[in-house]
Each structure stands twice: as structure tokens, then as C-alpha cells.
């Protein structure tokens, strides 16, 4: 069954002047169709302003469709009675690590979601422990979030979502504000969730190298899904990606340059190791 299904999703922002009269309508999402199956790792790529974050907010019923429907875990997000079920089904991690940690101690923050869901005390403790362990932050459980690095804070945020036992986890540019080592540790934690815990992951980012291992990728531009497929299929088309203001991973770019020069390399090389192997074959 599809965990997430967006059908002809349209979202319009209406800008108003000081008297509240509409002045301008911006179409942030334009007939988007995206489906995600249980256990998949989905990457959604796009530059700033492509509509990818707006899409993410629909999965958690923070925004509602102007047209079309979004189903999360089989529930229509427009259904007011199911609001909290939708939110506990699709957990969200946001961009700014400082603005989503509520607790003053790491473990208390992770417990915040379960507390809201009315989980009994004893079970909250179990969930907190297992979630912190899943992101490798168990030894920091007594620390103040203010003392953690950006990458560690984001892992705490991920644990906070995991503790709600969602069916899928949506990460809205979780690495945009981190340094390279922070990015690496967060991406590693996310991959671990998908590989080990079989969690359905929707990772929204503008860094292409973070979704090299995704099962499928959707590329968004101007509110539309403009490309979709496996990483290999997507990364084969370097000119289009560059036109879409995306940063193609180094090995893919080099492979593409070499192919242009006439080397017989296959399409969509993703990693350095792969590139080296293929180049050796050329000799």
C-alpha cells in the first residue's frame, strides 16, 4: 500500500494587501503526483523555491491542498478528525536545528512527542531510549541541547520524531544549515533508519549526493515534478540537472565530461569508486 499518495496536488498562496484584498496568486505546487511505498527511501530534489518544502508541509497537514488530495497512511489530510493520526503517521524534521527542539534536556525533548500522544510513562522511557539509540545519540541523553553541534541536534530531532512511532519520516532540508561533517552524520543516521529499521524516508534536499542511495528521486521545479526515476536514471541527464540549478555530484560530472569527450562510460555513474572501476575498464 502507498504510505503517501499525492494526486494532482495544487497549492496556491494568496498574497493580500493591507486591507486584506487578494493582490497576487502564486502557484507553489502545480498538479503534483507523488507516491511512496512502505519502506522506500525517496529523495525530493529542487533548488530553493521549487516547491519541495511546500510539498513536505502537506504531508503533515500543516498546509492543505487548494486542489487535489493527499493521502497519508490511507487517510485524507483534509479530514479534520484524522488530523492527529496523520501527524503521528508522517513525522517531520525541519531545517533549523535550534527551532524545533523543545526540551531543555535531550531525553525530555525526545519524550515530547510521545507525551503529546498520551503514551504511558513507562513506554515513553522505552521509546526515548530506542529512538536515541537508533540515531546514535544515547550517550547524550542527559545533555542540554544548547551544548550539542548542529548535526547532533538534528539527530535528536530525528529521534524525537521516531519516538512517535511514525510510519514514515519526512525530512525537510535537514542538512541545509550544517557543516560537511554534520551533514555526513545526519545522512548516515537517515540511511541507517531506512536500512536497519526499514523506516520509510522522504528526504527533501538540494544536495544531490545525499540521495545517491535513494530508491527513487523526484526532481521539482517551479512547483512541478519535472523528473522522476532511480538515481541512475536521474543523474544520467547532467545538462537538465544543471539547468534546474542542481549540483551534480563530482564523480557524475567527471564521468559525463569524459563521455562527452568520447570515453565509453555507462550512464549515471554515482560514486567515485564506481567511476574508478569504469575508467579502468576503458584502458
Amino acid at each position, binding site marked *: 500500500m502507498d504510505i503517501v499518495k499525492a494526486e494532482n496536488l495544487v497549492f496556491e498562496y494568496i498574497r493580500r494587501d493591507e486591507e486584506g484584498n487578494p493582490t497576487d496568486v502564486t502557484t507553489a505546487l502545480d498538479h503534483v503526483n507523488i507516491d511512496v511505498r512502505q519502506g522506500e527511501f525517496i529523495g525530493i530534489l529542487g533548488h530553493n523555491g521549487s516547491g519541495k518544502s511546500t510539498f513536505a508541509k502537506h504531508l503533515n497537514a500543516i498546509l492543505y491542498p487548494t486542489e487535489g488530495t493527499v493521502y497519508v497512511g490511507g487517510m485524507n489530510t483534509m479530514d479534520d478528525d484524522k488530523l492527529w493520526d496523520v501527524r503521528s503517521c508522517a513525522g517531520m524534521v525541519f531545517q533549523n536545528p535550534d527551532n524545533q527542539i523543545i526540551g531543555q534536556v535531550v531525553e525530555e525533548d525526545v519524550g515530547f512527542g510521545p507525551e503529546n500522544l498520551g503514551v504511558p510513562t513507562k513506554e515513553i522511557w522505552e521509546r526515548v531510549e530506542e529512538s536515541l539509540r537508533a540515531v546514535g545519540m544515547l550517550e547524550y541523553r542527559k545533555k542540554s*541541547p544548547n551544548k550539542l553541534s548542529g548535526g547532533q541536534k538534528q539527530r535528536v530531532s530525528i529521534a524525537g520524531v521516531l519516538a512517535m512511532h511514525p510510519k514514515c519520516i519526512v525530512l525537510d532540508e535537514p542538512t541545509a544549515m550544517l557543516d560537511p561533517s554534520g551533514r555526513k552524520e545526519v545522512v548516515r543516521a537517515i540511511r541507517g533508519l531506512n536500512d536497519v529499521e526499514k523506516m520509510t524516508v522522504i528526504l527533501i534536499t538540494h544536495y544531490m549526493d545525499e540521495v545517491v542511495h535513494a530508491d527513487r528521486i523526484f526532481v521539482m521545479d517551479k512547483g512541478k515534478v519535472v523528473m522522476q526515476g532511480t538515481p541512475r536514471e536521474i543523474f544520467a541527464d547532467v545538462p537538465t540537472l544543471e539547468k534546474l540549478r542542481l549540483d551534480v555530484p563530482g564523480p557524475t560530472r567527471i564521468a559525463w565530461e569524459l563521455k562527452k569527450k568520447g570515453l565509453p562510460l555507462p550512464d549515471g555513474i554515482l560514486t567515485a569508486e564506481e567511476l574508478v572501476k569504469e575508467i579502468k575498464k576503458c584502458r
Partner: protein
Amino acid sequence: MIRDITIGQYYQTDSPIHRLDPRVKLLGTLLFIITLFLYKNPAGYAAGAVFLLAVIKLSRVPLRFITKGLKGILIVLLLTVIINLFLTPGTALISFWKFTITYEGVGVALTMLFRLTMLIMGSSIVTLTTTPNNLTDGLEKGLRFLKIFRVPVGDVAMMMSIALRFIPILMEETDRIMKAQLARGADFESGNIVKKAKALVPVLVPLFVSAFRRAGDLAMAMEARCYRGGDGRTKMKPLIYKKRDAIAYIILFSFVIFSVWIGRWQVINDFFNSLYLRYIIK
């Protein structure tokens, strides 16, 4: 500069006082303060002081930490003493120029000094021995009866705890914005008060903008994690009274009864009054 504020600080150590349920400490402080206003003779204050010192000793917080809190209100303290000293009518003790200090004035001033000092010291014990989180929990549970009057106790407690979490973040942010404006040639030091206040606009505007953005983000993050007000939530760390809390309550109530009794006992009142009449006013 903002970091010098000590009131409301937590002193990390382990002590019987630290381990008490915050509700005990909150109620204890409240009762302690009330008793301070019930005493009618020095014996009551002496009992209060002994109790206070015993609690401080038990809490293992160095005394200088507690007296540090007094520095902030030194001026208020002095002002109260001086006003009472000079403005209480009664039998003159010393007169010079236009001022007169009366025996009654000395008495009232001393009483006020004792009351205020003990009040501040007593209440700083709570914040020094209780984590902010624990304190909000205590307030939330202790004030739960207000729900009858439709006071959203849970939400208010949540607001307090979020405010506490964001204070260090916003202080850091203030520091950063100030530096950024200094780099653009801003000057926060020279000029009179009006000029200095004006110079703060380039700091305050970005600070407010950022605080609002954070508030918006945070609200969204909380909703996404299914926060829907205080009702129906469970607690990860619920407050449960332990045996030591019961013992503390017993000690607390015994102290209140004893000190108020001794502090208002007619025999002692009469004794001090007779001392006063016999040796001071002749």
C-alpha cells in the same frame, strides 16, 4: 554583560534539598514568606533565621551564591531602611538638622531589613536547588487547581519552559547581531542616553524579527509533533511524592506552627516590650 544576572540560576550539586519534590520547595517558600509577616517579636525572626540557615546548610549551596542574589536589590534594601528610619513617627532617638530618627523607626527599619533579606535568600534557595524544568513541572502540578477557573495551567507551564530554553539562544543571537552592527561602524557606547537607546534600534529590530521567525518555526514543529494543548498529555517524568517529601512537609509545618507561635506569643511580646520600656525609653 547580560550573563551576570544570578537570580534564577541553578546551582548544580546533589543534596537532600535538591532531591525534594519542587512542590514541597515552592509551598515551603510561600509559607516561609508568609510567616515572615506574622512575627511580632524578635524570637520569631530568630527561629526563621535558624531554619533558613539550616536549609542553606543542607542544600550544599555556598552561602556566597545566596548573598550574591542580595547584591541586585541592595539599593532597594537601603532605601527601605532609610525611609523607615527617618519617616517613622515616635520618640526621638537622635535629631540633627531637619531629620529625626526615632526608636520606633529603628525598630521598623530592622524588621524590614530582616524580612527582605530572608525573603530574598529564602526564595533564591528554590531556584538554586531546582532545575528550571522541574520548577515548571512543580508549578504546573501545584497550580492545577486553577484549572477550575479556566486558567490554562499546562500551556502556561509549557510557555515558561520554552522561554527558559530560548533565553541562551537569544542571548547568543543578541551578541552576534551586536557584533555584526559594530562591524558596520555602529557605536553603542558614546553619547547620552537618548543616543544610546537609538543606537540599539539596529540590534533590536533584527532580534525581534528573528525571535518571531523562531516562534513561528517552533509552533510548526510542536504541531507537527502533535502538541495540542496541555490536556490529554502524559508525562515522561511525572512528579510523584516520595517518603522524603512527606518528612519535609512534616518538618515544614512543624516549623511554621512553632515559629508563628513563638513569634506571636503574648508572654514573649510582653517581655520584649518591657525591655524596651525599661532600658530604652527612660
